[in-house]
């Protein structure tokens, strides 16, 4: 019986948690949500493609002011994972400009979002510095 559930359906849990994209079989474009046709080439066949868990931080912001209920500050970023851009927070780091920098190497990391009344634990992901 599974006692864990991923935060989003493109996060695959298990021994080596990783993200999975829908990849267009004609042009290789990758999407984390569903598409009727590829936004690039209009192809209609997709296959599952695992995304490498290591990458480079190609942009970030440190959000200090957010919607009610969203804890701040946090680092939001875009990570280049072997040519696929992934959106995620930079975690396990001080959210300061001194500790986060453009081009820094990061790797996927997971953390608990909490457990519901039925004992199921939700697992989220972010990217942590890969020293």
């Amino acid at each position, binding site marked *: 019986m599974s006692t864990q559930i991923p935060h989003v359906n493109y996060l695959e849990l298990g021994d080596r948690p990783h993200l999975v994209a829908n990849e267009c079989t004609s042009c290789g474009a990758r999407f984390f949500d569903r598409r009727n046709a590829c936004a690039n080439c209009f192809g209609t066949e997709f296959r599952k493609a695992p995304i490498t868990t290591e990458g480079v931080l190609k942009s970030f912001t440190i959000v200090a002011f957010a*919607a009610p209920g*969203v804890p701040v500050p946090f680092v939001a970023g875009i990570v280049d994972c072997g040519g696929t851009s992934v959106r995620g927070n930079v975690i396990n780091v001080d959210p300061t400009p001194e500790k986060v920098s453009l081009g820094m190497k990061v790797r996927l990391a997971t953390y608990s979002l909490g457990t519901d009344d039925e004992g199921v634990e*939700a697992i989220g992901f972010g990217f942590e510095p890969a020293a």
Partner: protein
Amino acid sequence: MASDDIWILGIAMTKFGKHSDKDIVDLGAEAVMAALTDAGVSMRDIGVLAAGNLMGGGSFGQMLQKQVGQTGIPVYNVTNACATGATALRTAIMAVKAGEVKFGLAVGAEKLAGAGLLGGGGNAKKDGNKWEPKGRFGSVAPTDGRIGTDTMPGTFAQVGMEYGHKYGGVSFELFARISEKNHAHSVLNPMAAYQKRFTLDEIMNDMMIAYPNTRPMCSANCDGAAAAVVCSGETLKTLSLEQQRRAIKVSASVLTTDPYQESCQVLPDVNTLTRNAAKIAYEQAGVSPSDLDLVELHDCFATAELVHYDNLMLCPEGGAVDFFNSGATWRTGSSPVNVSGGLESKGHPIAATGIANIWEICHHLRNEAGDRQIADAKVGLAHVIGLGSACGIHILERSGL
């Protein structure tokens, strides 16, 4: 003037700011009445109304007609994010260009004072205590704040930082100095919501919203409206010499969306569609970036202004930092950008923005801009971006009569 040219015959904006005693219909009507007067025509002459309002909830055009004149003409209620105003203008232009109407009217109005943070929040938290996958990503909890940010300041911060990753040279201080310029410009603009000059220290030490954007580096939410009357060259020839003299030629009117780019799936790409629109616009107008006497571009955040120097080809590719550091984009520079004060100080009542920036250009081309007049301005460019994305670019030229 060629018969099939498009001309702005009249244009007006309300003062941007807090108008607590007026609703969007009042604001829109004020801009429309002033634009009609400026054009020297009445609602009886207008063949089509394109009405932009993003946050109000629909039927704005029809409400406006009841306020200023109901003649039974077609109304197009237009929304296109922050490009709503430019889209309304383009809708009126297309109707004139198609030969369906002699005079078209476009208006954009918004009530946004005190709106606070835009974007973000996402899917609401559920009440029950069971993880249930919901929505497009099968998410069991809100994603905003956990998987990146949906807020506008954070999104556009990443747009500027991404440019820095690609080309180098960006810093918190650089972005703050862009904001310093626009606030300095605003002091000369009585239509701006804020006319306060800030020191660099004041900007950098103000409240951080989304690094590197502090509060004065974000567009100002405010109320306002703008409207324009357009006609063809053929129609303009039948009007008075004074109308012909003050009319402003629309040398290019372009609207684009973002074509597929790998990374636009996770961070909106505001670059490719702007570059595409600029290319088309320069070609349509037969002008080059160096011909522009002034540019009003979409500085919704200081981090956005930088990338658009490059996207609009005001500088060589990758050269936006050096270009700004050269002082070119100050009103005294070779390529004045946002002499109105830009969205950071003039304000950003969303649907009004894409017509108000054209008003600013027209004001200079008509030599009516008073203290902030850019001397002998002949050609200008107005640019807006609506996130998602939509880009509107208009190139404008004075009549020369």
